[in-house]
């Protein structure tokens, strides 16, 4: 008995870790499993029979791949827009003292703190009153807006922790202001910028509430498509897309870790 207790005590941390991992990964594994299901009827909730139909024909459902492509387009553009704008804002806030600086800091924080539905509705009202037709543009503007906060937060933290002497050293070593920015400042801020960009992409891609309030009749994003489909029964292909995204994320993370470790080991 005491030996068992001892073993448990020695492995408690590992056990807790594995439980947490299971908690996080299990839903994804269910999605993965049901992507190989051949459901009876409209709903893909009960296991029936193994099939690769959905994987061999991922765009077999009407409108789904268009919505996926729309979501990817918006996510990419929103990521670029928010990252460029957010990086500039972060540098301004971290480096300069100007009138309205503290107000800006507070406003940047708002989209993260405010209930999404409130922001979605007020944005919708704004676009309506400004007579901007709902569609691709309004979705993009909305996404850039809420992604901006995350980029600013990530980049600002990085810039604040950077030693100002590094840039002075670059200037002292004959680097012009442009060269200093490109050769020293940007590479040093890059991890923060990358983190902000990745967050932006993920947030934009799977946003539903804000998109719902600001999209037009023909702009159905992937999350909106899934929502709509869930009323009638979600097609198996949605599981395929979900699984593919999950695997892509896992591969990217593992590759990143591996590269980081290798660089550390060889350097």
């Amino acid at each position, binding site marked *: 008995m005491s030996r068992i207790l001892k073993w448990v005590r020695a492995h408690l941390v590992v056990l807790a870790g594995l439980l947490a991992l299971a908690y996080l990964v299990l839903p994804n594994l269910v999605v993965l499993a049901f992507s190989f299901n051949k459901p009876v009827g409209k709903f893909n909730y009960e296991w029936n029979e193994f099939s690769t139909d959905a994987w061999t024909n991922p765009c077999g459902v009407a409108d789904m791949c268009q919505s996926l492509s729309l979501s990817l387009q918006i996510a990419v553009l929103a990521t670029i827009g928010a990252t460029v704008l957010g990086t500039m804002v972060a540098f301004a806030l971290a480096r300069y003292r100007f009138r309205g600086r503290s107000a800006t800091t507070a406003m940047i924080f708002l989209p993260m703190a405010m209930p999404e539905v409130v922001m979605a509705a007020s944005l919708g009202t704004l676009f309506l009153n400004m007579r901007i037709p709902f569609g691709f543009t309004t979705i993009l503007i909305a996404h850039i807006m809420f992604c901006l906060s995350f980029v600013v937060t990530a980049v600002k933290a990085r810039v604040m922790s950077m*030693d100002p*002497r*590094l840039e*002075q*050293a*670059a*200037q*002292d*070593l*004959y*680097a*012009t202001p442009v*060269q*200093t920015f490109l*050769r*020293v400042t940007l*590479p*040093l801020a890059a991890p923060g910028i990358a983190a902000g960009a990745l967050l932006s992409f993920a947030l934009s891609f799977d946003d539903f509430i804000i998109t719902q309030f600001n999209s037009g009749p023909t702009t159905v994003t992937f999350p909106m498509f899934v929502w709509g489909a869930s009323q009638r029964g979600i097609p198996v292909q949605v599981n395929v897309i979900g699984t593919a995204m999950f695997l892509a994320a896992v591969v990217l993370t593992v590759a990143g870790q591996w590269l980081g470790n290798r660089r550390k080991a060889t*350097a």
Partner: protein
Amino acid sequence: MTDQQRDAAAGGDVRLTGIGKTYGSFTAVHPLDLTVPQGSFFALLGASGCGKTTTLRMIAGLEEPTSGTVLIGGQDVTALPPYKRPVNTVFQSYALFPHLDIFENVAFGLRRRGKKDVKKQVEDMLELVELGQYARRKPHQLSGGQQQRVAVARALINHPQVLLLDEPLGALDLKLRRQMQLELKRIQTEVGITFVHVTHDQEEAMTMADTIAVMNGGRVEQLGAPADLYENPATTFVANFLGQSNLLPAEVTGTAGEDLLLSAAGTRLTVPKARCATDAKRVHLGVRPEKITITHVTEEVAEGRNALVGTVLDSSFIGVSTQYVVRTDGGQEVTVFEQNMERDARIVPGAGVRLHWNPAHSFALDASQAIDAGTGEEAA
């Protein structure tokens, strides 16, 4: 003639005229004139906040002077940005680029000036600082002393007319610091470039520099060779900051030939006129602790020496010497360093002693100055 020597010969003297810096109502550096001769090792010495680093940064171009001009090798660079000045800096805590390896750190300046084929030069420079095999490491993988050498190499490879060093050894432990002091001095002699070195460590300044400017409160208190500053301090700040001094309040009572007669708490003392920096009536008579001989009160003192009688308060053995604190009969506390050669066993705390020294080893300063300036204990 090597490249370095040619560049240095092209003129590496630094001339500061009326240069000053104020931040709002705070004056960091009062307008000062300073000339650093080409090829010299010049130290700006002072406590933190005395304006020494600001002065250095104005030479580098990282700080814009409020007034005055900076001339390097005869060329007015006051309006030039740092990347156009023929100077390089070794920063405090080195400021090595963490995302670049050692090779690229050292090559940075050459590449920015559009030099191709930097490999040979960088490798030679890394050999000079004995870091050849570390070229592909990142800065954080090196020890403090190695990083310091990279910082020096990164600056020197550009053959600047002037090398600026901002507390370059501050982050190193004592033993390594001693070693690097000699190393830097060796490199400076080898390349012949003008070095301007900022430090708060008086021993470091005295070990390395040809000329020291002691700064205090944004002003240069005194400028000179280390030995000159040590033997002939012009102010109480210099007397206390550079080494240790005993300063005794005294009154001038008259003259005798080349000597000035003084009275300190009733005791008659003398000091050569030449070593008196003031013509005030009230002075501080200064004498360094190692110049004083301590003998038991029963011993006679030779004619012509300054002598004080007192009681030993404390003695501490430091290895090469013994440090005594003596309270004189006049109520002054005097510190004495005595070489551990023939120690008199009678000189213990509580014993009566005579302190005496050659009058030529003392100096007199104007008593209107704070007697404890530069001790680190003065009232703020």
